[in-house]
């Protein structure tokens, strides 16, 4: 593994930790970003952790590339032994199948298993949020069980509903907004993943985990209503802690 530090134009620096996606690289990036944020370096505008790298956007009037690069090197040393991150696992309710999960039967048929098995495999897992991107609040989740990985549609749908939960190849994810998508849509969550009225607009952030649990249609509607009135509190637990 080789760490690479390069400029991205005149106002950003990219630190690449590895060239393949895995959880240990992610944890390294996560440590680095926590330490960076704690330092509150004057001139650093924001940073974006992604699969194998982190990008720092900065204002060259306040800090020049060479100065920031030096700070990055010293942070790299810190990143190895830092405090535990205590990730949070968000429990996301999903109404699987039906009109809002039209590809559930297709995914089941593709693997020659029952729809119930697809649901239980999909919901029985803690997925790491590697990064947020594409559209506001969209999580790139890692850890889909290969048993249910399914190729994308040949012809993407022009629009899928906000909240749609899908499988695209080896990935799974939740669409926060109505967008075009070529993923297999197996269900829908009643939760709002991105809300500009919240101090923290995105429910999820890189470094945390997501787990899905199936709900029936009635419950889906009930949660949706409460969620829209901001009266639904998303269930969470600390990673590693057993839930009952």
């Amino acid at each position, binding site marked *: 593994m080789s760490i690479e530090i390069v*400029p991205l*134009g*005149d106002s950003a620096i990219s630190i690449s930790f590895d*060239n393949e996606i895995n959880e240990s690289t992610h944890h390294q990036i996560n440590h680095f970003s926590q330490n960076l944020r704690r330092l509150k370096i004057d001139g650093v*505008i924001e940073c974006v952790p992604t699969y194998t790298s982190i990008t720092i*956007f900065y204002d060259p009037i306040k800090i*020049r590339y060479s100065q920031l690069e030096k700070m990055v090197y010293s942070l790299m040393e810190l990143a190895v032994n830092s405090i535990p991150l205590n990730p949070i696992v968000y429990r996301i309710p999903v109404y699987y199948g039906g009109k809002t999960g039209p590809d559930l039967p297709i995914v089941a048929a593709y693997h020659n298993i029952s729809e119930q098995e697809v649901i239980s495999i999909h919901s029985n897992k803690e997925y790491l949020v590697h990064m*947020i*991107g594409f559209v506001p609040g969209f999580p790139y989740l890692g850890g889909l069980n290969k048993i249910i990985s399914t190729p994308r549609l040949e012809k993407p749908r022009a629009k899928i509903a906000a909240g749609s939960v899908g499988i695209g190849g080896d990935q799974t994810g939740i669409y926060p907004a109505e967008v075009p998508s070529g993923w297999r849509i197996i269900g829908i969550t009643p939760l709002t993943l991105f809300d500009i009225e919240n101090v923290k607009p995105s429910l999820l952030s*890189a470094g945390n985990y997501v787990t899905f649990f199936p709900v029936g249609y009635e419950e889906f509607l009930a949660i949706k209503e409460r969620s829209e009135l901001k009266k639904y509190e998303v269930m969470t637990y600390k990673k590693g802690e057993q839930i009952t």
Partner: protein
Amino acid sequence: MRTPIFKVMKSGLQTTVQDLGRYGFREFGVSPSGAMDSYSLQMGNLLVGNDLGEAALEAPFIGPVLMALHDVSIAICGGNLTPKINGQEVPLWKSIVIKKGQILSFGELKEGVRTYISIAGGIDVPFVLNSKSTYITGKFGGFEGRALKEGDILFGNPFTRRNRFLQTQLIPKYTNKLTVRVIVGPHTRKFTTAGLKTFLNEEYSITSQSNRMGHQLTGPKIEHSSTADIISDAIPLGGIQVPASGQPIILMAEHQTTGGYSRIGTVISVDIPLLAQAQPGTKVRFKEISLQNAQDLLIDSRNRLKSLYRLTR
């Protein structure tokens, strides 16, 4: 005091409220957005006596028709869409007073692409995630998260002031041939030596597939060394993506925050405004520049703006 300043009689092609952009939320997938041509936006604000980062209207290709509901100083900067008040042509890069009941309209596109209408006292729209910029794909910010529509009423805190104009050397010239400077990388290894050479030596043309998210260019194919794809990473403004087609895409103000195409370079910050005003068909050449020089240029330009701003206070 929140006062109605303009009524939208005709929307124009895509008239949006834009300031210098939305920062701090890229890690949640939120594009910075903001004015495509930040130079014209700031000059307009300077002329009418606003803070440099106040929001203005950005109108590409076809301007809106607006009726003034209050006397107010305005400045029109950037692309020349033939601005008129009550049918009489008015100058760009100059503050002028529009009187209550007068109509601001636009005609033929003569030069550039986007015009900026800066209004003394600014535009009163809520700050959404710290910015007044419209984020079209995110459907938030600016005026109700969308481009203006007929019948909309814009509010502000209007005032009038003595007319101001700019020295000619501060007014950019828009041409149909453009050289933009780039910092090469970060995915240099994704391209062959020949591919890099093609990129830096050949001429590309801006296609009509260009919008606030990015400019699609066409020209000699840029050769990859293997696949065109990378593990998705964060994208900067001005990043130049090269998909498998070998045809570059320059990412502009409303770019996605992350992407999976290899990037051959990044257009330097001070050259983005000219690119924002480049019409489809404009010939573009890329010239390599060092990071040091690019940052010096950016610092110089920001310092010049700041000292101009101080002069007007």
